[in-house]
């Protein structure tokens, strides 16, 4: 792998707090190594800003290995940047060329208000889970793990849905700011497993109701969510969600 250094212009969204209107500001960074991660590049900028007595740019991050779902950022018009199946923290600077301008914005969705700069409030996702994204089993209630064999394909499919990291890129990518991919991933994870069966109907009703209440938009099947999802959560989950919802509606006790 050939390494190189680059100079870049960054056009970054700055917003003091939730109430502030916010706007773009330009910054120059020099000698950025192609081996750096995108967030390490922002670290360099922040160190520079601190040295110059300016306010560093606030952005969310923690694990920096693509699993906690804390990082976000709309990079050149794409959630988590241009690499496929990737989070911002795993994006590396070899994706950019010397002299480029990079535009960096927060997730934009009514249900994700900006906290500061590039940081948004995604607690709506937690409330959707509270509405039914669980299996009601208290500690100590369980029987032996192998007493319930589960078809491997079902287990694998449940796992594929359960890989969602709750980052919100699907919402950010969607022109309607719909949370359907996130929601459907959880409904699928639990609906595909026999353990999830008893609460199947109430789960899907309650979670969808909560999603609406949080102000996420409707799904019009554009597929933008799937394309942006760092964990390649399939849009087929949305179809499954719709089926679950329909089934629950038809068979609901009146």
């Amino acid at each position, binding site marked *: *792998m050939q390494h190189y250094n680059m100079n870049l212009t960054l056009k970054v969204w700055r917003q003091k*707090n939730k109430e502030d209107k916010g706007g773009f500001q330009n910054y120059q960074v020099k000698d950025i*190594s192609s081996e*750096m991660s995108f*967030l*390490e590049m922002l*670290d*360099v900028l922040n*160190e520079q800003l*601190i*040295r110059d007595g300016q*306010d*560093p740019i606030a952005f969310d991050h*923690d*694990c*920096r*290995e693509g*699993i*906690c*779902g*804390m990082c976000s950022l709309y990079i050149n018009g794409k959630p988590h940047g241009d690499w496929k*199946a*990737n989070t911002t923290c*795993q994006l*590396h600077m*070899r994706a950019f060329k010397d002299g480029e301008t990079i535009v960096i914005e927060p997730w934009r969705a009514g249900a994700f208000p900006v906290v*500061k700069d590039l940081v948004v*409030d*995604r607690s709506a*996702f*937690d409330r959707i*889970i*509270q*509405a039914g*994204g*669980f*299996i009601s*089993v*208290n*500690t*100590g*209630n*369980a*029987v032996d*793990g*192998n007493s319930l*064999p*589960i078809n*491997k394909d079902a*287990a*694998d499919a*449940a*796992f594929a849905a*359960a*890989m969602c*990291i*709750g980052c919100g890129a699907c919402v950010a990518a969607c022109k309607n700011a719909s949370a359907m991919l996130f929601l459907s991933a959880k409904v699928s994870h639990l609906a595909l*497993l026999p*353990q*999830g069966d008893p609460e199947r109907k109430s789960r899907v009703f309650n979670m969808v109701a909560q999603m609406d209440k949080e102000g996420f938009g409707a799904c019009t099947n554009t597929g933008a969510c799937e394309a942006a999802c760092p964990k390649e959560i399939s849009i087929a989950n949305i179809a499954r969600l719709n089926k679950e919802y329909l089934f629950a509606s038809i068979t609901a006790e009146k």
Partner: protein
Amino acid sequence: MLDAKIPAGSLDQKWTDYKGHCKLVNPANKRKLEVIVVGTGLAGASAAASLGELGYKVKVFCFQDSPRRAHSIAAQGGINAAKNYQNDGDSIFRLFYDTIKGGDYRAREANVHRLAEVSGNIIDQCVAQGVPFAREYGGLLSNRSFGGTQVQRTFYAAGQTGQQLLIGAYQALERQIALGNVKMYNRHEMLEVVIIDEKARGIIARDLVNGNLERHFGHAVLLCTGGYGNVFYLSTNAMGSNVTAAWKAHKKGAFFGNPSFTQIHPTCIPVSGDHQSKLTLMSESLRNDGRIWVPKKQGETRKANEIPEEERDYYLERRYPAFGNLVPRDVASRAAKERCDAGFGVGTSKQAVYLDFADAIKRYGKIEIGKEGRENVSEEEIIALGKEVVKEKYGNLFDMYEKITGENPYELPMRIYPAVHYTMGGLWVDYELMTTVKGLYALGEANFSDHGANRLGASALMQGLADGYFVIPYTIGNYLADEIYNKSISTDHEAFVTTEKEVSNRIEKLMSIKGNISVETFHKRLGKIMWDKCGMARNAQGLEQAITEIQQLKKEFWSDVKIPGAINEFNPELDKAGRVADFIELGELMCIDALQRNESCGGHFREEYQTNEGEALRDDSNYMYVSAWEHKQEHTWELHKETLNYEVIKPTQRNYK
């Protein structure tokens, strides 16, 4: 004398007897008892959910924007349990034995046995919650091997086991939140414990969004705040992982156990430059199939695939034929360092060794062909099929490696090097997980309890969930049963007022320094001192130097740190400044602890104490104890010792040959 309150009776009956005799709190009284849980990793989320289910009034805190993001989410490889589903000779005793031996005989027998006893329940509980563990075609749970054992007892969900377990615990927690049993405080950082009449009675927390300080009362306080590997600056921990909660507790009277016991993980992606902000683990599970080697020739310049088989040194297989690539982490890390120091390292920095999957790919390819009963299959097809199998097992890890390094590990061997990963040390706790402050508990990586001087892979997840799901729900009742007469204390109580004042004074002091050097720079400097002098190899002279350097660094920090922004706003630099200030103090104690222990054991390798073959040389007659440090005043600690009594296992020199 430190009393660990280990129940009497034979080892395998202690926990059963304890549960049979501990005090209980009736449901009506539970509703009147408030418990504070700091942390939402496996330990905190499982504890908070379980205590909420029992009926306690629970408040939970985490500094991330959601409890689901706790660092446990990043755990990759798996979780151990003595299920013996593979019929390969596993048992509670064997898991207990392996853990004690892996910890180089510096862990407490009673705790470790209890851990092994409840390990099976954890798997059952997680399956019931819908954790999608890997399964075999028959629908039953699958297992893999991890280091330091000869059985297959590790349960996993591809390379995302921690994520799946944490999501399970998080969902249980969210359910309790929805039911109103638990109240969640995201983006809050606990900055002090409030102690009233010698009992922990609450915390001071800072709302990280607006910077406001808050007072919270609890009849008991649980710290589930994770490990402190970031004292080394570079580690595999998440960026936010820190020691602050534990350190505040320590300064308020909780003893710190074995602070210098640090785990350096052998298989991490090597440092690529000064810009590096963290290191990424390549799960130990890769050592099931990957073979570790370096060239036999010093200063080799050829590429990996140009070096013929006979010119490669598979040094772990050579030195440790019985365990081969699956020796425990401390052993594997030191062996890698030894080869690199001797000039056999690879890559541009020469600080790396190869982890090679070529053989595994071929082996799996052949198995696939065998299943189909075909013959005369081309080498390419075998390799292609083998890659598919490897992809299913480790795909996400291979992807991660490629994203970071830009190299394709299906074609080229990975380059890896040891990195700081886990801290066995932590707040000293007794059998009930209570610290030396009454009513203050520590769970998960934040305590020192179960792993001695070296933790075996896949045992941290097990411990975190054991503490939270199956231990604390019993042991806390034994304490709270006597608290039912104590009404909740108003947060206007003088102790809350003064403790809050301490916190605000400190924050104002930090902000008023207005120096020239960034927090990050101080953190890097501390990390370098720690890694060079208190890292994989330590010696008395280096440690003494390190102590002086750290004291100097502390002075500089408090006179020259530069923190931008204001107190009453979202200000990550200020949050970090507080954490780094605590890391600096911890660093000093770690060096003092390492200096005090004139032996090598597990991850604590003192160069002065090694066998002729370079293995750790323990000194059981003088150091068979847990060092528990009491904070006295700046730069001064008093050492207390908890003597370890081995009633069942006879300590010997660890042998993985």
